[in-house]
């Protein structure tokens, strides 16, 4: 598991809130820092992949832990 500078719990939130919150959190971080995101929206798996592809922030890891989806994103 990568070391992370910040964590965002987006549990219970539905599309597009996890992405919007993540973007907002990343805005307040420095380049190279890693954000850990927890979400329960199954659509967020594909969406965070798409978010990373389009914004250049790198999706380091995308896993599921007991019904929760965990993402590690490195700020561009």
């Amino acid at each position, binding site marked *: 598991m990568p070391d992370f500078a910040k964590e965002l719990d987006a549990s*219970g*939130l*539905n*599309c*597009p*809130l996890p*992405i*919007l919150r993540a*973007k*907002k959190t990343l805005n307040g971080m420095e380049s190279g820092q890693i954000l850990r995101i927890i979400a*329960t*929206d199954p659509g967020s798996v594909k969406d965070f992949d798409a*978010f990373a592809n*389009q*914004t250049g922030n790198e999706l380091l890891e995308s896993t599921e832990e007991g019904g929760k989806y965990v993402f590690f994103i490195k700020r561009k």
Partner: protein
Amino acid sequence: MMSDEKKLAIIATKGSLDWGYPPFILASTAAALGYETQIFFTFYGLALLKKKLDLQVTSLGNPAMPMPMPVPVIMQTLPGMQAMMTSMMKKKMKSKGVASLEELRELSIEAEVKMVACQMTVDLFEFDTKEFIDGIEYGGAATFFEFAGESDICLYI
């Protein structure tokens, strides 16, 4: 603005609770993805710009709307039914973690989504512009095309 920034132009024409979502969901998400985004609100879409949103949803003329139990159309026309459906829809959305329209609009504004209100519609329906949120611009079809003509994606909702 970066010149290689992608652009999304949306025309929002509908003012019901359900149809109010697509413009704000897409605009806020596009902005998060780095799109420069503009929404042009015209006709009933102007209801989405009111400071106090009071949008309703109805199954009338919308047979695909999922209902907890079948209700004959004639019953759906009864007084209070629209308010009841609106309240049920809002509860459902909240329980599923779907953002309120107010929140999505606020997030769109925060993300610098530009909002333009159709001046002709404002005049037509004699809307009081004091009822609209701050920070919007007023313009017409030519104003819309100035941005839409440069856009990568253009949606009519």
